[in-house]
């Protein structure tokens, strides 16, 4: 049994980066303010001191340029971890991500490999307003050739980042900006969490919550409330959005007969729709209620805290939605 200690997601990510950089000299970091300034959210704190300016590169504000450079470096023997601080700014590098990184391996018939990780932030809640609060993971999950990862706990964050760096494909790694201080138990010593494997965060029997990133905490809290009413909720965290571990999700829904998908992307045309469709298709005969979805409201994220909070799915909404799935007899 490995020794465990409680650390935050920030610390877990930092450990992952440091460990992978120590282990493999081709791993290096690029991004705005990640070096001297320690990273806007402190994830890369101390890494430039430890590994030097050559391996922890402070870039100018040129998302398209340095993301493209990350691709070029990845094509030619290096394993860059590029930080695009707010995923809202992925938009500036979309050609690089979508037209180049995602497709080079395929278009060259397997000759090119792009072992690139792009770390980026998602999530509202900081009053940062519409251009700094989006969760655009659905966009990149839509593109063949990319892998998309969304950890919700320190254990998952560290293990998944290490795996992402070791993966030979471009991986977009979404961190939630409001969850950096979430604490959890992480083993001392080497371990990884494989990409493409979901995790059941809470076992239950009456309803399945499929929750991503910070919504995992919302789902767990709602499960506690519902337990008092005799409703036992199972919480499934996909952890990797692409490739998606369908089997774990379907197995859970086949057991419980009910599903609520909760994700912080906008409700329309996003992750919840994809997962709900898979469930409706492949677990149809096991459903005892329609599949429900909770996502961020289809509005640009407003600034004022009271407005912003109302646009993001919360515990009360999840509890109410879930109650609506049960008749008098269950």
């Amino acid at each position, binding site marked *: 049994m490995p020794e465990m200690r409680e650390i935050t997601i920030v610390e877990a990510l930092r450990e992952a980066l440091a460990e992978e950089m120590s282990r493999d000299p081709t791993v290096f970091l690029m991004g705005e303010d990640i070096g001297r300034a320690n990273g806007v959210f402190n994830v890369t704190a101390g890494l430039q001191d430890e590994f030097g300016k050559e391996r922890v590169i402070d870039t100018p504000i040129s998302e398209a340029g340095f993301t493209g450079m990350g691709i070029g470096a990845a094509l030619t023997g290096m394993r860059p971890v590029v930080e695009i601080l707010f995923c809202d700014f992925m938009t500036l590098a979309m050609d690089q991500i979508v037209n180049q990184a995602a497709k080079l391996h395929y278009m060259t018939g397997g000759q090119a490999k792009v072992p690139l990780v792009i770390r980026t932030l998602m999530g509202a809640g900081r009053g940062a307003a519409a251009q700094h609060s989006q969760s655009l993971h659905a966009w990149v999950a839509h593109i063949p050739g990319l892998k998309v990862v969304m950890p919700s706990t320190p254990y998952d964050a560290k293990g998944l980042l290490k795996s992402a760096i070791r993966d030979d494909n471009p991986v977009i790694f979404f961190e939630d900006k409001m969850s950096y201080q979430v604490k959890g138990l992480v083993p001392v010593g080497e371990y990884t969490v494989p990409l493409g494997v979901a995790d059941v965060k809470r076992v239950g029997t009456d309803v399945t919550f499929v929750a991503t990133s910070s919504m995992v905490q919302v789902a767990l809290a709602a499960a506690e409330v519902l337990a008092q009413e005799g409703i036992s909720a199972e919480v499934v965290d996909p952890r990797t959005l692409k490739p998606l571990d369908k089997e774990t999700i379907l197995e859970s829904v086949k057991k419980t007969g009910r599903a609520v998908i909760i994700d912080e992307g906008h409700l329309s045309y996003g992750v919840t729709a994809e997962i709900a469709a898979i469930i409706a298709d492949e677990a149809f005969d096991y459903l*005892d209620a329609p599949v429900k979805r909770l996502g961020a409201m289809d509005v640009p994220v407003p600034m004022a805290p009271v407005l912003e909070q109302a646009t993001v799915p919360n515990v009360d909404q999840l509890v109410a939605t879930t109650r609506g799935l049960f008749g008098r007899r269950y």
Partner: protein
Amino acid sequence: MATEIYMPQLGLTMTEGTVTRWLKRPGDTVKQGEPVVEIETDKVTTEIEAPTDGVLGPILVEEGKSAPIGGVLSYVLAVGEPPPATPQAGLVAATPTAPPTPSAAQPSAPAEAQERVIATPRARRKAHELGIDLSQVPASGPGGRIVEADVRWFADQKAGPAEPAKEPLRISPVARRLAAELGVDLSTVQGTGEGGRIRREDVERAAAARQVAAAVPPIPSPVPPVAAAGAAEALTGVRRIVAERMTRNFATTPHFYLTAEVDASALTRMRDGLLPRIEAATGIRLTITDILVKVCAHALREHPEINVAYAEVSGGPGLVRQVEVNVGIAVALEDGLVVPVIRQADRLSLAEITARRAGLVERARAGKLSLTDLEGGTFTLTNLGMFGVDQFQAIINAPQAAILAVGRVRERPVAVGGAVVIRPTLYLTLSLDHRLVDGAQGARFLERLAQLIEEPYLLLD
């Protein structure tokens, strides 16, 4: 504007009610608040009052027929108003110039036969598995859907021998017909088609194998066939409900029984002493049962571990600690058993208990018990002493944890100080739910009951 008279929701477990008697006829003038129809549920008989002034519309549910909660029984119409074409809430015939035919023989307003049964996929699977006709199953799901639990409930109600199959039977129509023709039991056939689907070849193979097996004499069934005496008749009404409940209670509750013979001398002296007083105060004669209610209530207060109820919590066994001590008394009626409840019995004086008991029994015999009379029991007392029963074991009234069965007080020989003497004694038999109470706890409770009966002055402290 037509106002619906519908079957109301009268109790948590009520799903349907039966119309027992129409008190008014279509076309009669009714006043708001006037009773128009009598209905019966599994627990209670009551009357439904006219919601507004007007004229009673056509009868949609005849006497003796049932309707689900919300089912429309009739309408209160304005004078000259025709009844609605479809029984939808609040809807009235669109044209205001409809001809006035209040007393003409109306065809019963057609409840549009629902051809489409709304059920969830999971419910359909379950129904298919259990061979249940979905149109019979009452829906409890949101949106009026039949959910799996409804199908399972329905199957339980039928108390049929259906052993739910582990997997839904996948079988080709050809194979099914062949199986019927050849008399092959499908549950024994191994399907070799995709996903375990039973195909024609599988049935043929099973039929061939059976012919071989038929040479071997079958193992005799443990249950000897019953010689048919007369036509079997289905149980109805309260008796049916009781039968179904008892089956379920007894099957799911692990009972154990503790018996004690107690000296009833003090008990009978107490009854004799207090009877005239209480009769003077209440007009009712004190009975042993009343004293036993007080004893039980007192002991339950001291032993809250008995005053609990079973509950499912997070899919597993759990209990609810009751706050009140509400003692139910089993009352035998002509066609069944009811258990009205004396609420907060631990706080009532003996006179109050006596009065309450008498009122409940009277209403029970008149079929006029209300829901409040029947709900909230945390413990039950049943006394068959008046029928000459010495001792018996009662079935717990789920979800309670215990029931006390009391026989008759009788002079019996007992050993006292090494000699045989004659004393009036009483057998107490406590049935307990072993999920909630263990032997020692039950024993301690029974011991206290015995103690309070033998030394009733202890009730004073």
